[in-house]
């Protein structure tokens, strides 16, 4: 049979593709049939948090930080309750990471504060002596992309039926409403910060990346 196939590239390619595709068909399709169910209490991210999530992605925080607590005592002691599938139901893309050059962040909102993040992102080694994390001063001057975050949320709502604007869920509304809400949320974060230029920017209706990022990190619980 193999000799026969090796002289007929078309059938060879067909056989080959079937062999390669087999595992994917068996493994992936059943899991997709039952879409991942959100855990009770999981809400979609606010626009400000999504903008912060985009900052997290832009600077590839996931290259060094995981968001997946494995069910071991040594991990739950260090990071909190192990991760559940339903907690990720609204995560597009997922941000589990594959390497812990730094610690896991899946529940970082439980044990770090806005003030801690502000100091840490500016000079990690001053907050954690011996830290090898880069400094991220540019997050204090770059402006977060609230418009794209809104488009992101609205795509999730329109295309994937993520329950924005549903009872007890995160409010999205129109672009104007969402923008005003994001600024409102940003003011709350900025109130706990000490950097004057960040405070001024927020007062002027701008959202620096650091504010959005901290809002996102604080939401990880």
């Amino acid at each position, binding site marked *: 049979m193999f*000799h026969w196939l*090796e*002289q007929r*590239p078309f059938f*060879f*390619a067909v056989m*080959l593709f079937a*062999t*390669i*595709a087999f*595992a994917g068909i068996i*493994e*992936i399709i059943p*899991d*997709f049939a039952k879409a*991942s169910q959100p855990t009770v209490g999981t809400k979609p991210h606010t626009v400000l948090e999504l903008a912060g999530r985009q900052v997290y*992605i*832009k*600077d*590839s925080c*996931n*290259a*060094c930080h995981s968001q*997946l607590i494995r*069910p*071991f005592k*040594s991990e739950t*002691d*260090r990071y909190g309750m192990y991760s*559940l*599938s339903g907690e*990720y139901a*609204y*995560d*597009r*893309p*997922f*941000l589990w990471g*594959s*390497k*812990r*050059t*730094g610690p896991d962040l899946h529940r970082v909102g439980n044990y770090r504060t806005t003030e801690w993040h502000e100091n840490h992102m500016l000079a990690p080694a001053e907050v954690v002596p*011996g*830290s*090898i*994390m*880069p*400094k*991220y001063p*540019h997050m204090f001057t770059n402006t977060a992309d*609230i*418009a*794209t975050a*809104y*488009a992101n949320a*609205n795509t999730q709502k329109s*295309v*994937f039926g993520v329950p924005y604007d549903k009872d007890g869920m995160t409010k999205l509304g129109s*672009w104007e409403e969402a923008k005003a809400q994001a600024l409102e949320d940003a003011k709350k974060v900025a109130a706990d910060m000490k950097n004057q230029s960040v405070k001024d920017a927020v007062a002027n209706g701008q959202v620096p990346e650091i504010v959005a990022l901290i809002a996102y990190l604080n939401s990880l619980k």
Partner: protein
Amino acid sequence: MQSNAQLEYDYSVVKLFTFTTILFGIIGMLVGVILAFQLAFPELSNLAGEYGTFSRLRPIHTNGVAFGFTLSGIFATWYYVGQRVLKMSLKESKFLMTVAKLHFWLYFITILLAVVTLTLGITTSKEYAELEWPLDLLIVVWWVLWGVSMFGMIGMRRERTIYVSVWYYMSSFLAVAMLFLFNNMEVPTMFWANGAPSSAMHSISMYAGTNDALVQWWYGHNAVAFVFTTPIIAMIYYFLPKESGQNVFSYKLSVLAFWGLMFVYLWAGGHHLLYSTVPDWMQTMGSTMSVVLILPSWGSAINMLLTMKGEWGQLQTSPLIKFMIMASTFYMLSTIEGPIQAIKSVNAIAHFTDWIPGHVHDGTLGWVGFMVMAALFHMAPRIFKRELYSKKLMETQFWLQTVGIVLYFTSMWIAGITQGMMWRAYDEYGSLLYSFIDTVTVLHPYYTLRGIGGLFYLIGFLMFAYNIFRTATSGRVLDKEPANASPMAS
């Protein structure tokens, strides 16, 4: 069987891809060395503002070496090996020649755009699938062009039976097409912006959370399979017998290893997700199939080593044979190490640590890098019709890089296992013994050693680039094509 003399092969596309193999190799590896030293000396992370941090550079390194260096090497060797084993010349078809050239230029533009967008932080965050949707579309175009050229060339062949190398190239084409399409299913958000001035370069994944992770690692693991494994096996099946003048040891073993690899590899992606929230049976399948994967992997490797049976003396005389045998040896090392890491209890310690990049690099530096360079060394006298410039330089490069790889993976083994054990250590009162930062500072010496290992490899690669450049420009001109062993000046 026709003689080669009747056909004049066209190497213009081969030369273009050879050039990009070297160019992207230098860029990708240089960024890699910078990253390695940034972990040892973090102040290096802040020399170029937001564009020079470890996190921003890391995708440039992975994409640069995987899709810049390795893919270029794959395409260069395909257009060389393809013409020869199929007994056809690109000169015979204007259409296929145009397709091949277009394939190259679109590919080249994509990689340049990839460097620019990743530097700017435009990324989807999914590993090895970081490029945003417009670039993904561009990739689909030239991937299809590669397929057209491949099946076009196969259609024109004079050799009835298709050779093992072609099976493997074909598998890369088909599998990557499938994996890439499914993993990069993404929705550009600009179409649902509802009036907000959003970015055109942003998209979100079609899958959420655990499902996204599952598709990502089905892709991520098998991108390794079909970019770093199968096309490299395609190369060794052609270049080792050619260079050594030996027949492949066993046809049966080739068949068994090929179909075995094709069936088993795709299952193994689950080993990236052990103890995660994907269903348990998939994790178990991932573990089990990873162990089974030893058989077809070692099948190919042993087939290659036994091809040298009775001819081991060539190792002493030819640095080119040395590169290929060392590549095959590293392939065996890395394909036994992977399954070990995929065992659940080992993975509990190894996952998230530096043992993983250690494993990746004994595969990529030792197996992929050595084999691609060996292929280019073998092709150079034939495409430039000149003798290889310097055998001595090849020898020096071989040893420098081998030492570099050994430094790299040994330091990462120690670093990974040390860190994995420290994360789970408890004191006698039942409290965690180490804070996280303790498990970072302890790695400094290993990170430094790894950087030095990487630097050795990079210097070796620059020697390689210089050697090929001098071969092309000032090697002694050959009047006829060498049959087997590549001629090289001392």
